[in-house]
Structures are given as structure tokens and as C-alpha cells.
């Protein structure tokens, strides 16, 4: 618990709890999304992005009606 790694993770965790307060402030209705502690709470936002958000986006043409496959 005295390790540098622990300190860093704890810092990210505290940041996450601050984000949750902000995100939940819009959750007024019963079905609204809830934000809180999960398996990603001790990751920084950069770490999360670097590991889990790795899809490459290719712009697709606008949909212009259902068509049969080629």
C-alpha cells in the first residue's frame, strides 16, 4: 500500500469518484444512466483510452434506402 503504483491508482480512483458526481448530476429520471465504481475506476482516462478504445473509425456513406446485397 505504500508503493508508487498504489498511490497512482488511488489518485485515479479519487478522480473517478469526482467524475461520477458530475456525470450523475444529469441522471434525474428512473431509467437514466448511472455512473460509479467499476473495474475501470483505478485507470486514468488516458490508460482507459489507450487499452480499450482502439477502434478505427471509417466514415461511411449516408444510408439511402434498403438495398439487396451485391
Amino acid at each position, binding site marked *: 500500500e505504500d508503493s508508487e503504483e498504489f498511490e497512482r491508482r488511488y489518485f485515479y480512483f479519487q478522480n*473517478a469518484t469526482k*467524475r*461520477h458526481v458530475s*456525470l450523475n448530476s*444529469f*441522471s434525474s*429520471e428512473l*431509467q*437514466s*444512466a*448511472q*455512473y*460509479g465504481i*467499476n*473495474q*475501470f*475506476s483505478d*485507470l486514468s*482516462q488516458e490508460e*482507459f*483510452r489507450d*487499452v*480499450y*478504445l*482502439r*477502434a*478505427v*473509425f*471509417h*466514415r*461511411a*456513406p*449516408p*444510408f439511402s*434506402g*434498403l*438495398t439487396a*446485397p*451485391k
Partner: protein
Amino acid sequence: LPAKLDWRDKAVVAPVQDQGACGSCWAFSVVGAIQSVRAIGGSQLVQLSVQQLIDCSFQNAGCSGGSPSSALRWLEQTRLKLATQSEYPYQAATGICRFFSPSHGVVAVRNFTAHDFSGQEEAMMAELLQRGPLVAVVDAVSWQDYLGGIIQHHCSSHYSNHAVLVVGYDTTGNIPYWIVQNSWGTTWGNQGYVYIKMGGNICGIADSVAAVFL
């Protein structure tokens, strides 16, 4: 269009997977769609190899990321038949492509479409009904903190970075929403699923949507 559509009710959606610390969402979404479309066609639901796509789809970067469109184009061009998950299991790491004989494997992709449905989510509902589960690329930055419920705010549609599988929608309640399967395990979100409000291209859910033909 029916007020509610959930392909899980037809037993054609495989269980939620966990990609682990590997940027392989693009492969999970593509394989998820292929599995479901095959099952909708009358075959038994079989889990197919995500690892094969990670290792062999060379235009993509394995665990360092990839594009569902590129993966689908590669599958269409090579006519590669995906092996089953059990014979080519997931490793959460990029490996060396294992080759099988051309006749080996379960199913090949014949064709696919990719469209921008922003402003046309009703047409996307029809596409989901007609084609089966759809691959979508979304902005999932705020999903780091998601626990459950319907996402209506804090989700931009300009920086898409994560691939998922749209398996249904529900318009029967106050807030119509898309039912989306993620690949971060069942402890995340609603047993591995995320619900996204329909109608406003929330999280960019309609920006890049692919359907698969087998």
C-alpha cells in the same frame, strides 16, 4: 416496425465476452455479427474465433486496434471461413496467424454494407430487423464509469473509438433505447450490455453501422 426488437429473445446472440486488456473490440463486434446472422439463417449458434481475426486480418493491428470495416472487407475478399472459438481460442494478445485448409472452418462473409444512419435511426431499426445484429463504432469515453441505465447525455458523436454490436431496441417505455452488446465482460454495465437513447445519434451509435451477409 415492431415497438421492441431483441435478437437475444430468438437465441441468436452469443454470450457477452471479455476482451481483457487487448484493443480487440473491432474483432468481437464483427465476429458477434457473423455468429448471429448465421444463427438467424437457421444454423446452430456457434461461437467463432475472434483470435483468428486478430491474428490474421493483417490490415488491422490486432490488440493495438482495428476497424470493423477493414476486417469485414478482408473477410469478404479472402472468403476465409472462420474457425470455432474452441479450436482457435481467444488469447487477449496478438499472435501468429494459424492457417487451416480452405475448406476448414464454419462460415465465410459473402458481403457487407456500412452506412451512416445519423438522422435516420428509424431506418437503422429496419436494418436491424431485416439484417440481424449490426456492428457500430461509437464514442465510448464516458463508458469508463457506466454502471447501467439508458445513456442520454455525456456521449459525443464526433470521436468514435469503440466497436460494439447492436442487438435490439425498445421503444415501449418513456425513453426509447438501443440494446448494445459490449465486450468488457458481464460485470460491466447491464450484464455486459449498454442502453443508448434512440433518436439523437447519442454516442455516435448511428455514425458507422455495418450489416453482414453470409
